[in-house]
Every structure is written in C-alpha cells, then in structure tokens.
C-alpha cells in the first residue's frame, strides 16, 4: 500500500495535491449548484468550455493561461445564455435545452481541435475525456526567485482553489439566500441575476482549470459527487463545505492508490472512489442511511420503498 510513496513520493505528492485542490474548488462550487438544482448546468459548462479553449489557442498560438481563462469564461457564459435563449424563446424544456446547447458547443470544439494542428494544442480526445492528472508533476515547475516551487498546473489550481474559498466566504450569505429563494434575494437588495452569472463565471474558471487534469466528463463528478455525499450527511451548508474538503481528501488519496494498484486512469480512479464514498454515505448516513431504513422496515415487517409504517392506527 505504501509502495507508490516509497518509490517516488514527490511525484505522487503533486498528483495528490492536484486531486485535492480540484476536489475542493469543484466541490465548493458544486454545493451551490446542487442547492440551485443546476447540477447538469455544470455538466453542460464542463463540456462547452472546449471551443473556448480552442479559440483562445488559435488566437494566441500558445497555451496562454489568461487567454484560456478568458476563452472558457466566454464559452461558459455563451452556454448559459444559449440555454436560456432556447428555453425562453421556444417551448423546449430546460433539460432538452441544456443537452442541445452543450452538445453543439462541444461538437464544435472537437471539430475545431481536429481541424487545427494537433501537435501544438496538446488537447486530444484522450485528454478531453480522461484528463492527464498523472502527467501534472511532469509539467515544468514554476520558479520564484530561483527556487522551484512546484508544477505550474498545481500552483494554478491552488490559486483557483484559494479564490473559490475566498469568494464563498465573502459571498456566503448572498449565495445562500439566492440559492434558497431568488425572490427574497431581490427583495433584500441583492442582484440575483448578477449572482447567477457570477457563479457561472466562477464555475467556468474552475472547470477550465480542472479540465486538463480530469477531463470534461469527470469534472462533473468532481463538481457534484462531493456535494451529494455531504448532503447525505448534513443539511447545513457550512458543514457541507467542510465535508466536501474531507471528501476530496479521502477520494484523492484512495483513488491514487487504486490507480496504482489497477494501473489505470488516476482521475477515473479518484472519481470512482468519490462515488464509492457517496454510496457509503447513502447506505450508512447516521440521519438518513438506507441500511437503517431497511432494518427498521424489516423489524416493522411492512412498508414499501420510501415509506415507513406509521405508529399507531386511528387517533
């Protein structure tokens, strides 16, 4: 079990750090997405940042980080705008609108990547879908004052994670209120639309910085699975935020071990472990665990799925 650490601890250390950072920043944003029932908007944006990245690359001819962020931001906001446009201007329901919008943009991104020079962009099908978290430590390290601090993507992700933590502290009450009751938000004098688009912008940035590490699809997992697990265990938002951090720590570490053991995709293994944690919380949550419900039902000897026999009969 300690085998990977003995061989090349620093290497795995960076991968682990990256996993945790991605998990924390995605998970915090994901908590709000879940509260707003927008989990699949996360799915949509995680796919549709791709054309933004490609266009940014085509314009700058390099993997310029501000340009990539800008591209992703624009693509994310276009996605949200497109979804709203389709949904408001026709009778197509929001779920179908989400599906149409993101598949179109993603397809556009894939076609563009296959049109432009493949060698330079360094975004291929594998990277889009699997992510390359295992290669993170191999990126050139950033040097400050001549001292190598760490691989660039990890430092970047750390910056994003810090920003997300900072923002969710600063805007905690606004986000909480607007997620719970948009009407109340407006009456309290906050700008609900601005908060919405702000959240989408943060989501785009988080997604694009995690994109390279875990790929388009597994970003969705990073966004919602920690939050879902936390929601099984607590109904209070600050506690959920804390649980998200714990979740990403455990799933990253366990996932890393799993991937070394099975010799498979590290990002995939991290998500699988995260999903496993959700299943555990689902089954054994102290307040809401399925197992306790089953056992209760077994002892009561009646009741269908999702219901429990009531105490007493007539009152």
């Amino acid at each position, binding site marked *: 079990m300690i085998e990977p650490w003995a061989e090349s601890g620093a290497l795995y250390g960076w991968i682990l750090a990256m996993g945790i950072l991605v998990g924390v920043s995605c998970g915090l944003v994901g908590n709000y997405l*879940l509260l707003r*029932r*927008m*989990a*699949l908007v996360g*799915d949509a944006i995680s*796919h549709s940042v791709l054309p933004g990245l490609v266009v940014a690359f085509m314009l700058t001819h390099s993997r310029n980080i501000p340009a990539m962020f800008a591209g992703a931001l624009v693509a994310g906001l276009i996605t949200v705008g497109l979804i709203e446009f*389709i949904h408001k*201007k*026709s*009778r*197509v*329901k929001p*779920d*179908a609108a*989400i*599906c*149409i919008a993101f*598949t*179109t943009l*993603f*397809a*556009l991104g*894939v*076609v563009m990547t*296959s*049109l432009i020079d493949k060698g330079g962009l360094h975004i291929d*099908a*594998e990277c889009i*879908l*699997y992510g390359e978290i295992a290669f993170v430590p191999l990126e050139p390290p950033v040097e400050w004052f001549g001292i190598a601090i760490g691989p660039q993507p990890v430092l970047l992700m750390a910056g994003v994670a810090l920003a997300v933590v900072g923002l969710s502290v600063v805007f905690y009450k606004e986000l909480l209120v607007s997620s719970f009751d948009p009407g109340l938000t407006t009456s309290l004098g906050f700008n609900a639309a601005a908060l919405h688009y702000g959240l989408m912008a943060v989501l785009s940035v988080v997604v694009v910085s995690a994109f390279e590490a875990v790929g*388009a*699809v*597994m970003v*969705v*997992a990073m966004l*919602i*699975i920690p939050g*879902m697990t936390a*929601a*099984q265990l607590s109904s209070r938002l600050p506690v959920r935020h804390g649980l998200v951090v714990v979740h990403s720590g455990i799933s990253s570490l366990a996932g890393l071990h*799993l*991937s070394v053991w*099975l*010799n*498979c*995709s590290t*990002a*995939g293994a*991290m*998500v*699988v472990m*995260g*999903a496993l944690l*959700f299943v555990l919380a*689902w089954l054994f949550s102290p307040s*809401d665990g399925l197992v306790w*419900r089953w056992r209760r039902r077994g002892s009561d000897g009646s009741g269908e*799925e*999702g219901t429990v026999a009531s105490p007493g009969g007539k009152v």
Partner: protein
Amino acid sequence: MNRGSLRWLGLAVLAFGCLFCTDVWAARISEIKEYSILEQAARFFTLRDPSLRNALIGSVLMGVSCGLLGSFLIVRKQALMGDALSHAVLPGVALGFLWSLTKNPLAIFVGATAAGLLGAATVHAVRTTTKHKEDAALGFVLAAFFAAGVCLLTMINNLPGAQKSGLDKFMFGQAAALGDGDVILMAVVTGLVVVILALGYKEFKVTSFDSGFARAIGFPAQGIHYTLMLLLAFSIVVSLQAVGVVLVSAMLVTPAAAAYLLTDRLGRMLLLAAVFGVVAGAVGSFLSFVGHDMPTGPLMVLAGSAVFAAALFFGPRYGIFARWWKQQSRAARTRRENTLKSVYHVLEKRSFQGDSVSWQELAEQRRETEDEARHLGDELCRHQLATRPRDQADLFLTPSGWQRACEIVRNHRLWELYLTNAAHMAADHVHEDAEKIEHVLGEDTVRELERRLNYATHDPHGKIIPGLADVQSGLPSLTRGGRAVGFGSDT
C-alpha cells in the same frame, strides 16, 4: 386471450432480437482489423466503396432509432436521461471487451445494455431514496459510471499484449469504420425499436402524457418506463460506433426537439424526428468521410443542431421568426386601428359634418406632425380602409374603414363603461385599459357586453357609443344625436 398472446409475441420478438444482436456482434470484433485497413484505403477513393455505404446505412438506421426514442425522452421531460445512459454504458463496453479478450466476444452488447439499465435503476434509486433531485441523480450516474468505464478502459490499454483497436472510436465515433456486422446489428435494433413502439404506441403515449391516469386504467407504467429504457440502452450501444459516448445524447435529443417545435401531434413528431435524425446522421457521416481524420460524432451533432436551429428560427407556427412576424403584423393592425379611431374622433368633434379629414386635423388629433399623419393615412389607403382621391388633399374612409373605426370606438367605449359600471373603477382610470382591450374584443364578447350594459348609448365621458346600425349604415345615423339608431334592433 388475445391480449395475452400479443404480449407474448412482443416478448418473443424482444428475446429473438437480443439473441440475434449478440450473434451479429460476434462477427464485428473479428472483422474490425480488416476494416480499419480498408478504411484507410477508402479515404483515397470517393463515393463508391463499401465503407461509405456502411457509414451511410448505419447513420440512417441510427437516426431513425435515436429520433424515435428521443421523441419520447423530450415529451417525458427526460432529455438528460439519454445523456446519463450513454455515459453509463461505458463500463459495460469495457467489461465486455475485457471479457472478450480471453473468452467470449459477444459480451460487449450484453455488458453495455446491462450497465445502461443499472444506470437507469441507479437514477431511480437515488431519486426515490435520497433528497437529491433528478438532476443530481442523473449527474451522479453519468459521471460515476463514466469514470468507472475510463478506469477499465485505461486498464485495458495498459494490459500487456492487449489490442485496444476500436475502443477509442467509442468516444467520438467513426462511421467509416462500421462493418457489415455493425450495420446488421443496427438494423436489428432499429427494427426492434420500430416494432415495439408501433405495437405499444398508445401505451407509451398515455404513460408519457399522464402516468397517474395510465396506472389508474391498469397499465404497467413502471414496466413501460423500463421497456423504454431498455430500447434506449440498445439504441445507444449500437450508436456508439458512429457518434461516440459523449454525443449520443445529442442524436437522441436534438432531432426530436426540432420535431417538437414543428408539430402538435405525437405521431407526426415521431416521424419528423426520425427524418431529422436520418438527415443529421447522413450529413455528418458524409462530412466526416470527405474531411480527413474527422470524427463522425461531432459532425452529426452539428448537422442535427443546424436542423434544430432552423426549426427554432423558421418553424411555421412556433418559430421565432414566425412569432416575430405575427407580433409585427398585430402591432401594425393596432396602429391602423388607432389611426381609424383618430379619424373617427375628428369627425365626431365636428358632429359628423362632412365625411373627410385633412392631414392637419388628423395630426392635431394625434398630436403628431403632418408628415407622420400622412404616413399613417397612406398606410390606411394601402389597406383599403381609406381613400384619397387625386384631386383632394383629404382622407375619406372607405365603408370597411368606417365599419372598423366604429367597431373600435364602440369596443373602447363599451369597455370603459363596463369597467366603471361593473368593476366600479373611476371614469378617469379606465381609458388606458380600454386602449389595449379595444383591439382584442371579439364580436361575441361585444354582444355580451352590450347586453350586460343594457344597450347603453353613452360612455362614462358622455360620448355616444356607436351601435350596430352605425357600423353598417355609415355616417348619417349618428348625426341625429341622442339615442343612436340600431341599439334596440339586435336584441
């Protein structure tokens, strides 16, 4: 019982279909190597080669089955179920492949279908046993299953001596790599989808529209739901080769959504969706064949999105353009009616002496410049509501123009009266509302208003309400003043 036997027939078809499918899949794996070579060669030849034929037939078949099933996803508001299921089949594909390396290659189809159904069941379980909403449940299944699939696929890639040929094609699809076996498999699945949807059309329709009612009349709504999910899983699995895991959902949703914008009948929607699916599939595979090294899936999706965009903008009934046009023509009609009303007011001020108005009078009445008034007057002339004889500068209303002017004024004043009498609003508060209502009151409502208002002759401001006789007989009747002729006549 007839009912029972039909049910058994359906089950038999289903079972036969499954068996046949797995059989055909066996052929595919062994042939895939040859076809990948053939595919390379085929790039240099144009339209006359088997791989293009296969690609075209395959995309057409896929378009049909995805369009049909997608229509049900749209009307059941489960569009994202397609997305979740298409990702959920991935571990099944990988497990099937892993198994087939050493044992039986038939497994992929079965594995993928099983994984898809497990995904659907997980969505249901998360939704019913936790507080999480549908979106979270779908997202969880999508991401978790996909991750498991990725783990397995990367494991396969890292296995010593394993050939991973074709597996990466599952991500974005390559229609040109479709073999004969694939196409036969697609044909079987598409046939199965068509047959089952045709047999159970009314069952699918009623459970989709009103599942409570369907259960109340004894239909097994849950069973029908899972039948749909099973067909969906079949259809997704065979489509993977052509469009890939990530974008199958678009083939399901986009053509069906386009059809949804064009018709109000489920049957026609199914047909249109199938046609759009075929168009998207064929165009996509053609483009992919022409362009070098282009994945098919994204091109098909873009073709489908183009169809959707066309329906969204140019749909005859619900299209954005059609609605904009309708709005414009309604606004224009309102504008003409307001001009007519102004003409009426001008005439009324002169107690209907003379039957024409000058630009100046019209402009004063409307508090506009003469140019603007002239512009509005010309518009009336274009619609035969007024005329302007060449030797005169004044505007004359035609009989139809006069009739409409009377109607509008009558509507306006009746409504004002109704609001003050029945709704007890102050007389100076009712004008604004009447300005809007006057253009939309139907003839029946007007009759009803007249009756309720006891055929009143004056509005709250003391002005005469033109009656039916005035509308029909032209100016003179009103000039008599007092009770206008005709109010009593249509009782």
